[in-house]
């Protein structure tokens, strides 16, 4: 996944310019079909099974 604008900001930089981060968030959410930053893309998939030696 290629770095996106905003991902390179450090936390300190982001805290100093929250309006820029918010603007990016709004812009990205308007891009239909585009990947959206700040959102989990995929629900994790939990699973469980016995160890191989016990199957």
């Amino acid at each position, binding site marked *: 996944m290629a770095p996106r604008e905003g*991902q390179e*900001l450090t936390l300190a930089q982001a805290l100093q310019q929250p309006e820029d981060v918010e603007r990016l968030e709004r812009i990205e959410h308007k891009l239909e079909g585009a990947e959206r930053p700040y959102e989990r893309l*995929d629900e994790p998939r*939990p699973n469980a*099974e016995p160890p191989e030696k016990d199957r």
Partner: protein
Amino acid sequence: MAFANISAVRTADPTNAGVAKDSFMSTDPFAIVLDVQVDSSVVTSGLLADVTWQIVNPRQDPNSHAWWTYDGGVISCPTVDTDWIGMPFNWGPVFWVFCWWSQYAEAVSHIQGPDARAGVFYVQGTISIQGSSLFAKSDQFWFKVRP
């Protein structure tokens, strides 16, 4: 006396959960695996458990490595947590339980910062058995991700 124990934790390829893998590309499939042992009385009792897996970025310096996200504002986000609430004990007293993503990058898709997709991190987990005093925690397992 009843017990619960996490004997090991590791990162792995989800198709090979029994084998530890400690280096990933951010596009690689990614799983966090906990090896769990519980007393057989827990299995037969029909109790449920809550499982939590964590990816942890131990570097908190806001001027360099810290992870952050946006949730109506910029907030620090040093861990990515995944839960399975109400897991049944369908696999006997010895089993492994894991969560997985088709790419590591998907696990941290909401994370921002210079180290969002690359660095050295660790995973850990807990299991808490509902309606009892039983719980277990794992050790830490370190791994590396490249972009």
